[in-house]
């Protein structure tokens, strides 16, 4: 789970990153279910696929068209 980042859509249209805890005893799906608000669109990505640079962090954009939706 250390290599996983959940990219999710913020209310303001920005991009949030959910960093799951590998030690909490919960599965990734359980973490997503409880820590993302209901109706939030998200994608599970590999940490290695994240941008190397945090510059313009608030300007990041992700296409959530085919994303999962937290129920």
């Amino acid at each position, binding site marked *: 789970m250390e290599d996983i980042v959940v990219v999710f859509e913020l209310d303001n249209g920005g991009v949030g990153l959910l960093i799951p*805890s590998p030690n*909490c*005893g919960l599965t990734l799906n359980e973490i997503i279910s409880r820590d993302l608000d209901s109706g939030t669109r998200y994608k599970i990505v590999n*940490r290695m696929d994240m941008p190397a*640079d*945090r510059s313009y962090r*608030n300007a990041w954009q992700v296409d959530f068209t085919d994303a999962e939706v937290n129920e």
Partner: protein
Amino acid sequence: MAINFPASPSNGDTYSYSGKTWTYDGTATKWEPTNILSDVTATATELNYVDGVTSAIQTQLDAKGTVSSLADLSVTATATEINYLDGVTSAVQTQLDAKGTVSSLADLSVTATATEINYLDGVTSPIQAQLNSVGGGEVEVWAYVTMSGSTPTLQNDVGVSSIADQGVGTFRVNMSVTRTSQYYALSGSAWSDEFAQMRPEATSPTTRFWVYWINDAGALTDPNFSWSVMSAGEN
């Protein structure tokens, strides 16, 4: 009992006595028994089964004794136990030896002692989950976050299910435990003069709180930093 054959018989003469018949062979000048095997029903093959027998067969059989149970063979194992060997295809000991020796925890690469392992006796569900659900105390929630590259890394976390990076200088800590208290302590470090603030989430003050990095001008900032948070216990 002597048999009184006729004196001066001719070749081919027969003589019967006590149910048996003999024929006189004038060439050999002796009486030969006639139909000596007439009462024998065994075939020559069956009779040849005794070829090689050196002493009374019944005596030999009796000497073998009776085998009607495993005890007659001095076997103390039960038939069930012996049947455990059903399916064995090669020497059992050889197979056991090939499994390697496990005579200590070290053989299993376990560094914990037996005493330490026995502390798990009575555990009925995942320990971490139980720890996370325990209230009270002073440090039930602990997270150490570092920023390296673009994505936060969560380490040494206790009672935290995730960290949500919400943008520049803004993080939400999601707890895996429910606290009745909303008081938390925070410590952190950054490369410059930024400082951190924290605030329980308005709608979920016991399970979520927010951390903000703010610069001297009062604006959110995104320094390279690390920080930790902990609950302050019940207040």
